[in-house]
């Protein structure tokens, strides 16, 4: 194992002498501030909830876009105008809606 230069080692020893002792006790009200911070953190919506919302929204958007594309393709293939929703409505009425 290598070592520090003797002068550098001595500098570090000198630095130890120059360190002013500081109190180790928690300042007044510190624990109260920590617990208040904890409480506000727990009541605030977690970033995980937002992440989940974003993921769900992204999936929902993807599903809508894919459905729209399928509808567009089927309408184009059947020769009907894409603005004509009749066949789509009939499909929903017959198969999906009660």
């Amino acid at each position, binding site marked *: *194992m*290598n*070592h*520090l*230069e003797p*002068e*550098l*080692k*001595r*500098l*570090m*020893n*000198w*630095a*130890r*002498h*120059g*360190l002013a002792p*500081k109190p*180790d*006790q*928690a*300042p007044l009200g*510190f*624990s*109260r*501030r*920590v*617990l208040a*911070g*904890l409480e506000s*953190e727990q009541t605030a919506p977690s970033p995980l909830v937002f992440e989940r919302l974003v993921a769900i929204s992204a999936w929902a958007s993807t599903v809508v876009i894919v459905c729209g594309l399928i509808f567009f393709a089927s309408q184009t293939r059947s020769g009907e105008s894409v603005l004509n929703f009749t066949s789509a409505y009939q499909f929903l009425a017959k198969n999906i809606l009660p």
Partner: protein
Amino acid sequence: MGIECSVVTPSEDTAFDMADCLERVRRKDEPAARVLVERLYPLVIKVVRANLPRRASEEDLAQEIFLKVFVKLDQFRSAVPIEHWVSRIAVNHCLKALRAQKARPEWRMADLSKEEADTLEALSTSSTDAPHPADAVGAVELVSRLLDMLSPEDRLIIRLLEMEDRSVEEIRRLTGWSATVIRVRAFRARRKLNKRFAKLKKEGKL
């Protein structure tokens, strides 16, 4: 950046039942949580003072660490003393804060304060281990500047090994790093520090 000593010792007060305190904290007992903060504060603040980024508030950093401790408390298993577990959280949090700070620009002899220049001069002319008070203050600044040139991990290793005379085993417990990682990091950190110090003495810049 401070260069205080960081002491990590398991709770020696046998009258205090840490396990019971932790159990009550888990049950959202506020007085118990306050007691836990009061008991662990000296440990956390020593780690923070030893690894404080420039212009950061030690109290704010300590508060962030305690928030992390409370949030993760359910993950704590009593396989290690709570003090070691908290130390690792504190060390990792401080290292993350240090990594986020901008690198200090190159430092030249002309940038040294009078105390620092005098200390460097005294260091080369004197061989005493008991410095003049003014040299001791200059030494704190010089060491702090030198350590600032290292990565946060190297800085921590040098401080623990060279300034606090910690053993590799103690550092392993404190940081969670393996003994090999500590030895390799210490070797590289010493080499870098020796190089910087030699450059400072020779060319007047780091």
